[in-house]
């Protein structure tokens, strides 16, 4: 009812006028061979293996255009051959092997060799490495090259080693070139082996790429790709609406609904491997299991998704989304405000005498993050929880989390594009991990043995049991899986990427 009337009002307003105006704007922003992307984050650095930008999931779309990962990843998160054509463990998981694709060339025309691969791996795993994921890369060593095959010793069995090769910092860099120009020179003129080469870059402004003629894979659909860095969502909307850009992402859902109906524009919104969750810290009043469970049961996730996110979100019950390998649909944490009130009453709390704590949240970092927390606090208020909202910046969140000083409840988003339980439940919930908020021995005892489990089935089942235990104890509040809205000109074809990386290679002219 509401929806319809709202649209009517809209139609009466600027909508019709804009539709006419924009019909003419459906021509590609800068010619047929060029794709212009209004991108939501700035590219800080070209080295995909170093510093904070290396672990920023959004930037991977750019890195994956310029560089190749050891192992590729399809839009549905499945691993596929990349620079490595085949890989695996020996039977007792003490050795690894990998085959390097033979016909790959760097952007400067020189061949990519197994030496480059080994150099990249050793650099990533070195003791003084600035690679944020070096704790994974350092689990293998003693690399040997025999033709196109590389073998190595597993210093410690790491079940996700090869998965990381398709994930953050899993990129092959040019040994000879990097050693020649150094880190600073590499930032100035980076070369990789990916489908696009860097043509011109202006920080905070744009990155222009041109197709790599030597590329080993499918020829990219566009000769030129321009990433315009537009961090402001409203400006991005204006970019696509005015026709200055051909495609953009992460716009407000209301705007997405409006613009996808505009003539000449199309929209696609699919769930990505990014979730919204509320960390619970093991301090008062969260040490009371009744309070934790009541806080979870009082949240109507479906109402939040439907009303606040306009349906763009998938409620989740654990930290695993349906795409992850340890997803268990039998684990449920249903919405039950009555039960929540009862649990609180059992601990002596009521709406008149509420339990009080602080909840921290970012604001504008993720779509509707702050609004979502406001809605949740409203729901809590009704059952007898009075939460005070404290807004923090993302930098503060990281510091508080690593020093274990988060508030009793803290909203955050968690990305896990390889879908493994270690990178979702594992690092978020394991006490010794610097990223966990709930630290308790009972849980650590259950998680501990799973890290090095060599039997894959036993490993995944073990994580499912951990997820069930966490849900039963209420150690974390999973909220929803995010949906990524992408708007583009109708003469384009876009394959959404589950990892959330809007790679230019997934865009092509519509037939």
């Amino acid at each position, binding site marked *: 009812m*509401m929806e319809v*009337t*709202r649209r*009517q*009002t*809209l139609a*009466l*307003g*600027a*909508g019709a006028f804009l539709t006419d105006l924009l019909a003419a704007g459906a021509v590609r922003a800068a010619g047929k061979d060029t794709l212009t992307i209004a991108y939501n984050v700035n590219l800080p650095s070209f080295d995909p293996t170093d510093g904070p930008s290396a672990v920023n999931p959004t930037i991977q779309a750019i890195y994956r255009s310029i560089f190749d990962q050891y192992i590729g990843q399809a839009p549905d998160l499945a691993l596929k051959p990349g620079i490595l054509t085949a890989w695996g463990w020996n039977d007792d998981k003490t050795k690894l092997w990998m085959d390097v694709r033979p016909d790959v060339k760097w952007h400067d025309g020189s061949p990519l060799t197994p030496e480059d691969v080994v150099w990249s791996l050793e650099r990533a795993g070195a003791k003084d490495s600035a690679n944020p994921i070096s704790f994974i890369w350092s689990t293998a060593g003693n690399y040997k090259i025999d033709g196109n095959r590389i073998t190595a010793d597993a210093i410690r069995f790491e079940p996700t080693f090869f998965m990381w090769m398709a994930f953050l910092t899993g990129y092959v860099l040019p040994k000879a070139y990097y050693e020649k120009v150094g880190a600073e020179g590499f930032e100035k003129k980076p070369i990789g082996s990916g489908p696009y080469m860097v043509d011109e870059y202006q920080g905070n402004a744009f990155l222009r790429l041109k197709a790599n003629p030597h590329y080993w894979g499918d020829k990219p659909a566009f000769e030129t790709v321009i990433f315009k860095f537009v961090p402001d*969502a*409203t400006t991005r909307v204006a970019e696509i609406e005015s026709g200055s850009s051909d495609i953009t992402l992460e716009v*407000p859902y*209301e*705007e997405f609904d*409006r613009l996808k109906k505009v003539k000449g524009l199309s929209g696609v919104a699919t769930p990505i491997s990014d979730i919204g969750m509320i960390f619970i810290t093991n301090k008062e009043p969260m040490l009371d299991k009744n309070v934790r469970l009541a806080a979870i049961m009082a949240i109507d996730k479906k*109402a939040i998704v439907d*009303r*606040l996110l306009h349906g763009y979100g998938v409620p989740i019950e654990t930290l695993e989304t349906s795409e992850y390998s340890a997803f268990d649909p039998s684990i449920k944490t249903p919405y039950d405000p009555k039960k929540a009130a009862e649990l609180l009453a059992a601990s002596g709390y009521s709406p008149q005498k509420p339990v009080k704590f602080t909840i921290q949240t970012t*604001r*504008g970092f993720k779509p509707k993050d702050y*609004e979502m927390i*406001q*809605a949740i*606090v*409203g729901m809590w208020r009704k059952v007898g929880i009075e939460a*005070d*909202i*404290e*807004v*923090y*910046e993302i*930098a503060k969140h990281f510091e508080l989390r690593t020093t274990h000083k988060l508030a009793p409840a803290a909203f955050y988003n968690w990305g896990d594009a390889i879908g493994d339980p270690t990178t979702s439940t594992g690092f978020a919930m394991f006490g010794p991990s610097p990223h966990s908020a709930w630290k308790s021995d009972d849980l650590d005892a259950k998680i501990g043995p799973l890290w090095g489990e060599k039997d894959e089935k036993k490993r995944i089942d073990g994580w499912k049991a951990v997820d069930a235990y966490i849900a039963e104890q209420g150690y974390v509040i999973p909220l929803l899986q995010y949906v990524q809205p992408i708007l583009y000109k109708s003469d384009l074809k876009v394959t959404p990427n589950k990892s959330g990386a809007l790679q230019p290679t997934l865009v092509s002219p519509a037939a």
Partner: protein
Amino acid sequence: MTEASVSSFPAASGPNLATRRLRALLAEPKVTIGGGFILALIAIALFAPWIAPKNPLDQDLMLASLPPAGLASAEPGYYLGTDDLGRDVLSRLIYGARIALIVAFVAASLAALAGTALGLLAGWYRGWVDGLISRLVDIWMAFPPVLLSILLVAVLGAGVGSVIAAIAIIDWTRFCRVVRAETMAQAQADYVTAAHAIGFPPFHILMREILPNVVPALLALVSLEMGIAVIVEAILSFVGLSVSSDTPTWGGMIAEGRQFIHQTWWVFAAPLAALFATVLAFNQLGDGLRRALDPVLRR
């Protein structure tokens, strides 16, 4: 205790002075209109719980994004409509006036207090005191204000207190410079020489003779500073750094409303209009004060 005054400014002394200044003020339309608006706003802010039609924090996702009264599909009782969480825009606007005014008055007063104290000292004692304070002002003014305020709020943590502190810490220099110059000028005046001759102690002269004569210039500046404070609060809210928790602020509303301008333009327009009107009122008031109290301009 009656205070002796040898002030010859402006041309007469005694109890008449206050009344005359007041009369001059009320004759200035900018003062009456701008001041009237601010007084009305103060009343609204003070009596917000009685004036606001709804609780500004109450959300009702079923009543989200309602248009203002008079438009199609508006709901009775929501005069300025609701935002995307179903909160009443008018009530949020009214409560937002509280934050805006608190920030304006407290931050401007603090900045004025600090700036005046240092300005008086520098202008009166000159020498190394002046040198030290002036260097400090130079250093301070060389910081880019927006960047410094963002940094300061990052240091102090989000919240009304931090915003106020940031504004006061950044903007005391404006007052210091003016008061210093004014004090130096006044110190040359005949009445100060006379006061010296009578044998008043220097500190007495500074506080009892010079300060009252600096006040007119100060008042105008305070009013302008209040307008600036309202804007700075809005900018900080806009960057997401101002007041945390549920408290509605105009800047926060602008930032929220901007994202959905096509769906709910009123959420954007209403606080923008309030911000604009308030800053305008402070500016006009400051302007009027300056005119009414400055004998040179009053010719």
